[in-house]
């Protein structure tokens, strides 16, 4: 009972979310018409915000090497910027470091027993420290959803604090795993739990990409509004990363419209907003080449499969 009250208390403090209202709001973003220069700017911006990701059991140093090359040079056209980061498992950090250390492309690593987080805290923290020691600039952690749903909010928050400490100078991204929290109320509450203990410039992130439902315009909006309210309250600027399920350039532009119209210009940069994605990059490049040449390239020019990078 006490645990249920904890969530209720937090929601009383930060306010609730109406699902119908959010879904209606985000539907309007998809009707924005992005043409010509605005489209090219948006596509390039989205490219520069991609955390190019490979998180598979079959990842090898070779696969990570080609992912890094793709992140550094998405296309022959040098007008197209490199991505923000590559995102890999901790064991792959040192392999990625060989290619991207010293470049603008950061190394992000999922840690804390990703994606379930179901390991003892000690193990999770050790994993974070190992990834940082190997050269990870950014750590993507998962929150303890089990504890959240059981109402042990303090435990969730304390664990996030512990990871912040383990990160040292590395940036932290806190994955809420929105599909497991299920309701917008829970997503808003979890956003605040995280934001109150992470540092300016750290991220909150929607999903692992390992469950059936990932980033949507709806949960993105709930989290953007939480970031905005937290900023007005404290002056602390928290960054945002939707991840999983964003496969097309058009979707990415819809997400950016949401950022532009909710948080404004200061968040339209890759230090404040990222896309956790793999297949998205090729569609962004495909559309950029189309804008430049006026024609779509042959279908085999850009692979649909991210494993072909």
């Amino acid at each position, binding site marked *: 009972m006490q645990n249920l009250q904890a969530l209720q208390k937090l929601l009383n403090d930060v*306010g*609730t*979310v*109406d699902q*119908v*209202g*959010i879904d*209606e*709001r985000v539907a309007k973003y998809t*009707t*924005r*018409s*992005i*043409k*010509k*220069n*605005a*489209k090219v*700017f*948006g596509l390039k*911006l989205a490219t520069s915000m991609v955390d190019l990701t490979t998180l598979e059991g079959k990842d090898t140093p070779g696969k990570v090497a080609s992912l890094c090359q793709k992140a550094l040079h998405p296309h022959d056209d040098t007008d197209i910027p490199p991505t923000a980061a590559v995102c890999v498992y901790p064991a792959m950090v040192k392999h990625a470091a060989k290619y991207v250390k010293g470049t603008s492309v950061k190394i992000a690593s999922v840690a804390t027993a990703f994606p379930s987080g179901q390991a003892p805290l000690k193990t999770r923290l050790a994993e974070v420290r190992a990834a940082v020691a190997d050269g990870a600039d950014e750590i993507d952690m998962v929150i303890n959803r089990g504890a959240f749903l059981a109402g042990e909010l303090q435990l969730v928050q304390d664990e996030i604090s512990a990871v912040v400490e383990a990160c040292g100078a590395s940036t932290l991204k806190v994955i809420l795993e929105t599909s497991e929290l299920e309701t917008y109320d829970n997503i808003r509450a979890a956003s605040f739990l995280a934001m109150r203990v992470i540092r300016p410039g750290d991220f909150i992130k929607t999903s692992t990409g390992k469950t059936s439902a990932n980033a949507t315009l709806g949960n993105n909006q709930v989290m953007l*509004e939480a970031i*905005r309210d937290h*900023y*007005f309250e404290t*002056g602390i600027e928290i960054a945002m990363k939707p991840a999983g399920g964003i496969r097309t350039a058009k979707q990415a532009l819809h997400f*950016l419209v949401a950022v*532009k*119209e*909710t*948080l*404004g*210009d*200061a968040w*339209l940069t890759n230090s404040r907003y990222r896309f956790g994605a793999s297949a998205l990059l090729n569609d962004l490049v495909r559309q950029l080449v189309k804008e430049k040449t006026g024609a779509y390239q042959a279908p085999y020019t850009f692979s649909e499969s991210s494993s072909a990078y």
Partner: protein
Amino acid sequence: MPAKKIIRPAARELLFGNLWEYDPAPESAPAFIEPRYGLFINGKFVPPKTKKTFDSISPRDEAKLSEIALAGPADVDAAYQAAAAAFPAWSKLPGTERAKYLFRIARLLQDRAREFAVAETLDGGKPIKESRDFDVPMAAAHFFYHAGWADKLGYVTPGRTLEPLGVIGQVIPWNFPLLMLAWKIAPALATGNTVVIKPAETTSITALKFASILQDAGLPPGVVNIVTGAGETGAAVVNHPLAAKIAFTGSTQVGKAIQRALAGTGKRLALELGGKAANIVFEDAPLDQAVEGIINGIFFNQGHVCCAGSRLLVQESIAEKILTKLKTRLKSLRTGDPLDKNTDVGAINSKAQLARITELVESGVAEGAEIHQSSCPLPEKGFYFPPTLFSNVSQSHRIAREEIFGPVLSILTFRTPEEAVEKANNTHYGLSAGVWTDKGSRILKMSAELKAGVVWANSFNKFDPTSPFGGFKESGFGREGGKQGLLDYARLE
């Protein structure tokens, strides 16, 4: 020694600038507007007997769109004669046959939706995204809905049947020209009546384009007649002895005049008039969604909506928070060319309406309310008014009492639910209201206590053909839509 610099904490403001400016995205589909329109009487376009025309201009850039025929009493009489002649055959047609015509009209409207949306935006000034996503689809939906009723009139009230009234005289406003036409014509035809309709003088074009749909649908001549003109034409429509019923949507002032003119004539009357709706936000409401609803409630169609949520009643404890959120939201609201697909707030319908809004806003400032306006640049030509909020408004201010019919929101506060109801009902009007709270029981209680035809819960400006719409008090009487709207166009036998 230089004075010590005062270090202020950086203001926590969000920057909605032009880092990523949307390029112009004008809707390019042609509207197919004729340079000259006659009157639509007995199935064909005829020149007016008055030999007079008037110009229809676009509020978007004041460019002339077309010349519209001015109907005089003789023209209105011709329209009524045609409608009366068509009535016997039309009313005796089996419901399934009348339904076919209505279905055909609905489908033709869908086929030409884009063209009608552009015409509606050019003529009335509303953003293309609204005419495209709301007005035209909703107009078609009303024809579909009433097509469904046409062959089921025997089942509306068990044991009794619905009989048509005769010729219906209809006068519609300029805020939703095509949609109001659909609201009026669809139930009248479904129940077997014939129609003489007059669109508003500033927005006649989509009604006249609609006449070509009636021709394409093969509707028998005289069933729908469209006469155009201003107030005098309207008076001729209202006062014609052949009218069995008058249906009017427009201002309360004109509505009262019509009711006086009709007294003792035996004509039926339905009036859908003005409003000054209260949008009531409690402290436990989901605030961001409430803000979105407030914005939609007042800036939808530039506030040219009779049920617009023009009075915001906020619980005192959250008043400041809501005002901050509204001001932030105003910054990303795009006012400008209504033909641009990214425009949220378009052009004011006419110069006269712009003058009225301006006058009322000046009165608000003079009476001491605090004004907050969007800084979005406005086009140089055409009629535009920036989205406007007034805080520190009290019940006695003109901007809290009079219908502004523009993008202007008055913000008032309340302390208890009882006070909210008291303030919300303290108006001559009673068309609509909104309640925002997380507490379901409070919504039910409020909706019973608010004297308004429609009460929206955690939403605003939601419409559906199945849902009756109409007012209390000086907002009029009679209902449109749903079974209730249908019954208003029939006698029970």
